[in-house]
């Protein structure tokens, strides 16, 4: 009994000490409420040096939080609780957040450097006239393969994933839109299809794929491809660029018949309590030098055309990440399908995952 008491008192004492020190650390770092900028971003999706630079230049203190899926971010912001000043959702999620009136329209008189952004990436269907969002990075969905195990000539199109020789060696990204989208694209259909017949056809086609699928995972693909656990994977261009840096046998292909192009744009959610800080950060990121530094660190494709001029040539001439226009023309953005079809896509995907090898 005495021991228990000591244990409890000890735990409470430790909690108190930790609480007080963390408070003191926060104030000593200058987090005093007004000047804190809370950024909610994907994990490992900004050069940490830039945050330090921003803090030095502007005097704001950045509190940086991360999420691992658009949906998780959406739920957290919808619930309120934390005063997020900036977040970086993908395009379909921006559409959804616009519809739910969770975003603040941008005041362009406070934004400097918007002309640095390539006009190809402005005024897109998901946010006409960029009323709510400014492009941060863009990229594609494609196939990454290891030339030690497969011949690159044989892995150029989505249909190649179904080949006999890839038995038990493909890793898929764990997302309903991605997997069903690639099945639709492989037949030349749109990855935003709402045609029940086409979806049923895609489901039937996917039913033949499980023999080749080794695993359906997410971020781990990076680690597995670098360690040569699998020979082929479906992944995003940004992830791919990091894998390429770590294993010279890897190559990234955007299937020319069509694939997904995605945008991650900066938005200001209604939870903001430091809107000036949010604009300051947007302006900071629009500066070509900063955008270029960020693009070099992350490896995704930057929409900032001024920044592209500052990047080494081997980066901007790499067609794996800055594809030619004829490939870009076949790429599609994910549209918000509405709750009914999101449900249908997910049911098909769940059904697909249920198939046994």
């Amino acid at each position, binding site marked *: 009994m005495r021991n228990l008491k000591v244990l409890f008192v000890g735990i409470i004492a430790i909690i108190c000490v930790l609480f007080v020190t963390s408070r003191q650390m926060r104030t000593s770092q200058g987090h005093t409420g007004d000047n804190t900028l809370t950024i909610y971003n994907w994990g490992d999706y900004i050069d940490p040096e830039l945050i330090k630079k921003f803090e030095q230049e502007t005097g704001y203190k950045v509190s940086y939080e991360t999420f691992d899926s658009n949906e998780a971010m959406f*739920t957290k912001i919808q619930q309120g609780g934390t005063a997020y000043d900036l977040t970086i959702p993908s395009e379909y999620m921006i559409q959804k957040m616009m519809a739910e009136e969770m975003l603040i329209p941008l005041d362009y008189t406070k934004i400097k450097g918007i002309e640095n952004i390539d006009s190809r990436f402005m005024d897109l269907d998901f946010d006409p006239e960029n009323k709510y969002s400014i492009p941060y990075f863009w990229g594609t969905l494609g196939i990454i393969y290891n030339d030690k195990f497969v011949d690159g000539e044989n892995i150029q199109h989505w249909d190649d994933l179904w080949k006999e020789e890839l038995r038990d060696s493909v890793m898929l990204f764990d997302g309903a839109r991605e997997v069903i989208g690639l099945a639709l694209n492989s037949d030349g259909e749109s990855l935003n299809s709402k045609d029940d017949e086409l979806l049923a056809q895609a489901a039937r086609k996917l039913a033949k794929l499980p023999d080749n*699928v080794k*695993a359906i995972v997410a971020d781990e693909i990076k680690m597995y491809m670098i360690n*040569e656990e699998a020979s082929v994977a479906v992944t995003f261009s940004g992830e791919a660029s990091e894998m390429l840096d770590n294993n010279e046998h890897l190559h990234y292909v955007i299937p020319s018949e069509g694939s997904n192009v995605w945008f991650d744009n900066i938005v200001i959610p209604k939870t903001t309590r430091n809107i000036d800080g949010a604009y300051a950060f947007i302006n900071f990121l629009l500066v070509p030098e900063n955008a270029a530094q960020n693009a070099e660190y992350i490896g995704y494709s930057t929409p900032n055309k001024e920044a592209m001029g500052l990047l080494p040539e081997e980066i901007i001439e790499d067609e794996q990440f800055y594809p030619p226009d004829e490939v870009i023309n076949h790429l599609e953005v994910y549209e918000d399908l509405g709750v009914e079809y999101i*449900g249908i896509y997910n049911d098909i995907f*769940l059904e697909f995952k249920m198939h046994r090898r």
Partner: protein
Amino acid sequence: MTKTKTMYSIPYILWLLLFVVAPVLLIVYQSFTDIDGAFTVGNYGKYFTSSTALRMTFNSLLYAGIITAAVLLISYPTAYFLSRTVHKQLWLMLIILPTWINLLLKAYAFIGIFSVNGTINNFLEFAGIGRQQILFTDTSFIFVAAYIEIPFMILPIFNALEEMNPSLISASRDLGANTWQTFQRVILPLSMNGVRSGVQAVFIPSLSLFMLTRLIGGNRVITLGKAIEQHFMVTQNWGMGSTIGVILILSMVAIMLLTGEKKRRKGGNRA
């Protein structure tokens, strides 16, 4: 006197209402709403007519059953021998020790051990057997799940064996029973309580494991927990997610009833 008693019970009652009763009622309520929030029984209809959902339920039950059986098979002898060793506390401590390490860390460690270039495959290569696919198989999933659950089975069984009056065993010997008979007729029935709580502590969480299904099973094993996560996070169909939640709760109640003590059978063990 009774007044102060009720006063003391207020925090507990509030706790129960807020954190036990209310959430369960909310889940039940949600399960009767469709995606727009209107009342419906469609979720249940959809669940019981969808072959995917039923197969998923069957799979979850099957995997949870296999995991529990494997854990029991390992834990009972362990607990039995443990209760007969000299340094009981030390051994027990060593068994509990792994639970101090975060589940995710353990899962990642197993990825390292099982991967194509991992420890086991390096050994297999060295032994001349050649590399095998270990990660993302049913075997690896069940192995890791069992490994994680073992302490939760050993502890209750060990406690039940410890609480047993040793004179009962001596009595059994004196009356002419051999070791096996003593075990079968005396020790096993008296430790059944520990086995029951162990089975509950392992089977129920196993039904809704979902991090392991992705990390170790590569999403090739789909459990009900995974489906709930998808309905809440991806489709935002909270109604359907809650429906699966309610079905999980009901199946847990069923497990409790099945494994619970049968009080009606007086003097149950006829040993």
